[in-house]
């Protein structure tokens, strides 16, 4: 029996949702291959999360408790994972397909001669025993199927919300502590400060099941207070179109579109967004799309599951009222 590795993406508060989704998927895949699912946790906090990781499918947990994992850019994680690949002899690694983790996968893949497929929304075992991955390209216009070359390690970057997180009721995983002696090279780019801007009680748009987005039609930055009010009521994150971030109404970090973030929530609710192709490239793979816009001809309505043609400043407050009445 060999091991299938899942690199846990986590914040100070615990594992991110995508990590539990990856473990659940790995658990299902391991049933067909007979592998064991081993989670990898880099940085402090593994012990507190062990039970939850076990419940989602991890039977083993490699952990490196040093703050050095994030004290320098990318390479400490690469060196720790090299060690885990050696120890486990795993040939498959699942990682969260988010920016910083992709860098870890890229550098590690060069070192250990692996193939990398990012932004994966489907994984199956092919007849020849190789992984077959599906992903959406060109902003979701085309769905592609890819596989790995024979004999290569397989790194799969998993999109947020591509798979459900499921509890299997298994117990805590076996803990394997790592002792990593970093090279000087790994200490080459030091993190000297961390600036936290995001609200702690609102989910990030990358992992939120619901995303409320605002655009040019908000008119000014105060419109994002209304978006925030709606988002907090239904447990969503808040995103923006490029018109809104370029105008300075909302931080660029939350821009949804071809030059910004790509999201696939179960519900996208856009207000005052016309749905230009550049924006659709970042959100059209959302499972359900709601649009509120005063222009009945706005292209967003062509991909909307539910659309309201009207003034968002009349419709959204009324919607908040109606939702509160139903809760």
């Amino acid at each position, binding site marked *: 029996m060999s091991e299938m590795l899942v690199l846990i993406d986590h914040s100070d508060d615990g594992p991110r949702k995508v990590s539990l989704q990856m473990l659940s998927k790995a658990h299902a895949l391991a049933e067909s291959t007979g592998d064991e699912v081993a989670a990898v946790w880099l940085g402090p906090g593994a012990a507190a999360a062990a039970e939850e990781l076990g419940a989602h499918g991890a039977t083993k947990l490699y952990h490196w408790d040093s703050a050095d994992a994030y004290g320098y850019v990318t390479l400490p994680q690469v060196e720790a994972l090299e060690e885990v690949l050696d120890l486990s002899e795993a040939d498959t690694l699942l990682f969260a397909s988010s920016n910083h983790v992709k860098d870890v996968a890229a550098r590690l893949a060069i070192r250990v*001669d692996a193939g990398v497929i990012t932004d994966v929304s489907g994984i199956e075992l092919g007849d020849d025993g190789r992984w077959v991955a599906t992903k959406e390209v*060109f902003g979701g*216009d085309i769905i592609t199927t890819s*596989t790995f070359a024979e004999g290569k390690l397989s790194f799969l970057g998993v999109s947020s919300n591509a798979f459900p997180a499921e509890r299997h009721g298994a117990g805590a995983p076996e803990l394997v502590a790592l002792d990593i002696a970093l090279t000087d090279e790994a200490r080459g780019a030091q993190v000297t400060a961390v600036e936290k801007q995001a609200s702690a009680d609102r989910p990030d748009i990358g992992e939120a099941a619901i995303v409320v987005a605002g655009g040019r039609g908000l008119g000014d930055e105060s419109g994002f207070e209304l978006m925030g009010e709606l988002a907090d009521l*239904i447990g969503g994150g808040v995103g923006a179109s490029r018109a809104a971030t370029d105008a300075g109404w909302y931080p*660029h970090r939350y*821009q949804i579109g071809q030059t910004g973030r790509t999201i696939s929530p179960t519900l996208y609710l856009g207000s005052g967004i016309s749905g230009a192709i550049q924006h659709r490239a970042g959100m059209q793979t959302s499972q359900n799309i*709601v649009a509120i816009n005063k222009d009945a001809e706005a292209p967003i309505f062509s991909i909307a599951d*539910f659309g309201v043609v009207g003034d968002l400043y009349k419709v959204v407050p009324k919607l908040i009222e109606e939702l509160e009445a139903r809760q």
Partner: protein
Amino acid sequence: MKVIVPVKRVPDTAGEKVIDPDTRTVDRDAGETVLCPVNEFAIEEAVRLKERLEAEVTVLLVGPEEAQPTIRKALSYGLDGGIQITDDAIVGSDALGTARVIAAALEQEEFDLVVFGNQSTDARTCLVPAAVAELLGLPSLTYARHLEIDGDQVTVHREHDEGWDVVSSTLPAVVSVVEAINEPRYPSFKGIMAAKSKPLEVRSLADLGVTADEVGAGAAAATMYAHEPRPPKEAGTIVEDDGSGAAAAQLADWLVEKKFV
């Protein structure tokens, strides 16, 4: 100081995107192609380094002869010269294969800083900047929303979901930039005219000392082998707000019915 900006030719997001059934690569002749919009932020940052530190900036492109207008476009922002790597054997490379070609080209150059866009608008893997840094044995200060050079030190604000990390290393280094970093200016008429006569060097894989079996579809560790257009969406329910609030109530019902609330 010497700066190199690798750029990419991509299909226009607004245009038709076609995958060539034989090569399984983007058919860049099928629709309009453009300089990747994310590269504009890298170019703008390089132009600012020219203005602040008299940096000499070279643009690097891996792609066929028809991609030369993309290099000229990049040069029109006021960059100093271009290098194009072109070779039929490169076709079908995966992101890591492309990184090998870029890294081999960079190894022939003297530079202090390589400035990438953080992703391309077509493939969006984000893998290339970090892979190039790994191949060159350099730090990868990626997703920069702010960049400073002080002597032989580079400091960036490295963006993440919750804010950013302040990170520093010595030069040379590889950085990638996100759109928050600046507001790209438009090329001037003078810049567009001058771009036509800027030096442009064309190199093959042999010039780089790379053999054909190290790159291309045959060497790709991950290969796309099938593709289909996204199935068209069924038309949704569109209601008009008549001022009575009925439309908002209908939407609330729909959200409840779908179990979002």
